[in-house]
């Protein structure tokens, strides 16, 4: 058994961490959130360019044949944990982990064309999968792609598509057959974000990103834009969502680590009743409990990441997400509580880490959703 990272992985972590420490200060992040940077609203294109050109991290999980670094899930985990630490809002998750993951899994001409663009930073991809009625069921789809000659006509409404306002492409799930919640009949498409018939309503999210409601009205999609088989893409969608879920768990590890560290630091500084509040045993024990939650989140995230390519993938990911979701809530709420009034103010970073940790709880499935899925898989 070996939990050590390779030299390359250590270097990857150091490179990302150093870059973010130097350039991605909390103040700079908030400027991006408020749309005060050139060329972007809710993201910073210059940061994305640096990710591609200076750091080369957009190629982290891709094969060298495509121009990548030859890594995989562990590299994604490393990058996502740093993204969590710095509260990065740029779309590594949907572009590299999700869309990149789908293309990597299926290969072919589309992958050969788009993966190099992802690595170069020119393809920015949002994942349009959730629908108003669907909650966390990936197969609950009303969006349809009807056969039209050699291609399809795509129609439907996708909810809360993070990064859609500035994406160049949309990765979309739709029904090419079957009934609303059937396992069969799900297909996956990669389409240009500005295709005719696509419209959006853009808005900010509570955790600082930009998202959209995306509407498709008879959007013409070529057969070559389909990823995976027609009507048989659900297993692929489940796989990429599991990979994304493991990645977001890694992000949560970064977020909760910072929440804990910041709160610990504050408890040592803040004086009430003539001593540091960290001298009160209730605060000490709370910080210890937070610490234990973070460490266990890190462990179970590692477990899930290492099992992504095994038959235990789904159970491992659901185990991780349910545990990490609880950690997000416990650590986030207590970080605010121990900060007292200051924890409620929008000026301090701690509240923004809390907001992100709260949103992670629900992304790709709540604690309950994943416990239920875990039960179904392992207990029956």
């Amino acid at each position: 058994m070996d939990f050590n990272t390779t030299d390359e992985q250590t270097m990857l972590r150091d490179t990302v961490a150093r870059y973010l420490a130097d350039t991605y200060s909390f103040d700079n992040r908030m400027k991006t959130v408020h749309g005060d940077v050139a060329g972007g609203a809710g993201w910073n294109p210059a940061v994305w360019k640096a990710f591609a050109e200076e750091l080369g991290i957009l190629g982290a999980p891709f094969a060298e044949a495509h121009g990548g670094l030859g890594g995989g899930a562990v590299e994604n985990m490393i990058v996502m944990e740093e993204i969590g630490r710095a509260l990065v809002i740029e779309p590594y998750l949907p572009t590299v982990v999700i869309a990149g993951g789908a293309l990597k899994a299926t290969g072919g001409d589309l992958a050969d064309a788009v993966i190099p663009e992802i690595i170069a930073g020119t393809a920015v991809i949002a994942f349009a999968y959730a629908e108003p009625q669907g909650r966390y069921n990936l197969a609950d789809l009303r969006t349809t792609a009807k056969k039209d000659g050699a291609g399809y006509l795509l129609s439907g409404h996708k909810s809360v598509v993070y990064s859609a306002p500035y994406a160049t492409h949309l990765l979309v799930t739709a029904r090419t057959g079957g009934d609303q919640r059937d396992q069969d009949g799900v297909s996956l498409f990669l389409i240009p974000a500005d295709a005719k018939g696509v419209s959006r309503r853009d808005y900010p999210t509570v955790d600082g990103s930009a998202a959209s409601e995306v509407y498709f009205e008879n959007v013409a999609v070529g057969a070559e834009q389909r990823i995976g088989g027609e009507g048989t893409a659900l297993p692929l969608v489940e796989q990429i969502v599991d990979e994304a879920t493991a990645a977001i768990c890694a992000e949560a590890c970064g977020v909760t680590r910072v929440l804990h560290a910041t709160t610990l630091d504050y408890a040592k500084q803040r004086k009430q009743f003539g001593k540091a509040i960290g001298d009160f045993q209730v605060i000490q024990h709370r910080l210890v409990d937070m610490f234990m939650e973070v460490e266990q989140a890190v462990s179970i995230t590692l477990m899930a990441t290492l099992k992504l390519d095994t038959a235990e993938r789904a159970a491992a990911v659901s185990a991780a997400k349910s545990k990490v979701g609880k950690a997000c809530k416990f650590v986030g709420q207590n970080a605010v509580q121990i900060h007292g009034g200051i924890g409620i103010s929008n000026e301090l970073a701690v509240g923004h880490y809390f907001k992100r940790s709260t949103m992670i709880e629900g992304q790709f499935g709540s604690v309950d959703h994943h416990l239920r899925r875990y039960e179904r898989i392992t207990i029956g």
Partner: protein
Amino acid sequence: MDLSFSAEDIAFRDEVRAFIKDSYPPHLNGKIEEGEELSKEDFLSWHKVLAQKGWIAPAWPVQYGGTGWTSVQRYIWSEETARADAIRLMPFGLSMVGPVIYTFGTQEQKDRFLPGILSGDVWWCQGYSEPGAGSDLANLRTKAERFTGDDGKEYYRVNGQKTWTTMAQHADWGFFLVRTNPTAKAQEGISFLLIDMKSPGITVRPIITLGGEHEVNEVWLEDVIVPVDQRIYEENKGWTCAKFLLAHERTGIAGVAASKRGVERIKTIARSELDEGEQLIQNPFFKRKIAELEVDLSALEFTELRTLAGESSGKGPGPESSLLKIKGTEIQQRITELALEAAGHYGAPYFRGFGEGDNEHPIGPDYTHRTAPTYFNMRKTSIYGGSNEIQRNIIAKMVLGL
């Protein structure tokens, strides 16, 4: 022992229900339901209706403008207003400084300040906390030095900084704890002053909170001149007023009636939301959480009723009220957690709320669009009014003798 309402109680309930139905300002409908930020005018329009009716201060003694209701009637009143989703009035005048003034004030002070509180013409804010004095309130530094003015009258000159002052941006007057004797032991040398917020030397600066709201402020006092007759009770004995007020603050804070309404709202949301094609309320996990919430709320409700019964038999609100504060706020927070959970993906869009003339429709179903900001905002309840850790310390010391 008897849990049922008498015939008079039921008649009273019907009267109250009819009154609210007929008199609640229609433009406020839906505002509580959707967790919208409330304006000063929103609060005032309901306040004025109640003041007109003589029902603005059920907790006050009749001689000062109270209603003379029994504790059961007061309980019915809070049930009915919550049931109707009526705005909960700001506590600073009615529940905090009002009782301090009629308990500790001179006749002249009562005559001068109580009418404005009842009518709603004067808005109050609470200037207790300071950057270095939160939980450790007695560590406050804002100082008030006494001097004789050119007119021969006695004044205080006040200097310092207060923080977290809720609604100070709207307040006409504030009640402040200040240090009048710098050499006395912490709790001793503190006085309770009423200060006109328009006095020269007062600056109010906003603090924006996690949900994007402007609720709290920093208040700076620079050479603010306050006549001595605006001090309540004896000089250097303000701590007595402060403690009295905090105990009052805590009883209201349990919020049982509003939480009951909150639980109903969660059920409505969970009936509308779908999960695996079924109503979310049929999801056994979610259903269990609602059930647990209801059970905990019942236990809290009957604890509060026992406390009320004790109060009406002559025992003031004691340290037991800390229990109501802790459990009440925990339940309020859990309600906001469940609402956010029920909202699913639609918890994420940030929507500031309707402004006047703003007709852009929010993202997702109406009941989702303020769930996250409300959840973030309600984290304050376990911090303010004496944090829940401090409340537990109080129970440990005062009730358990530890």
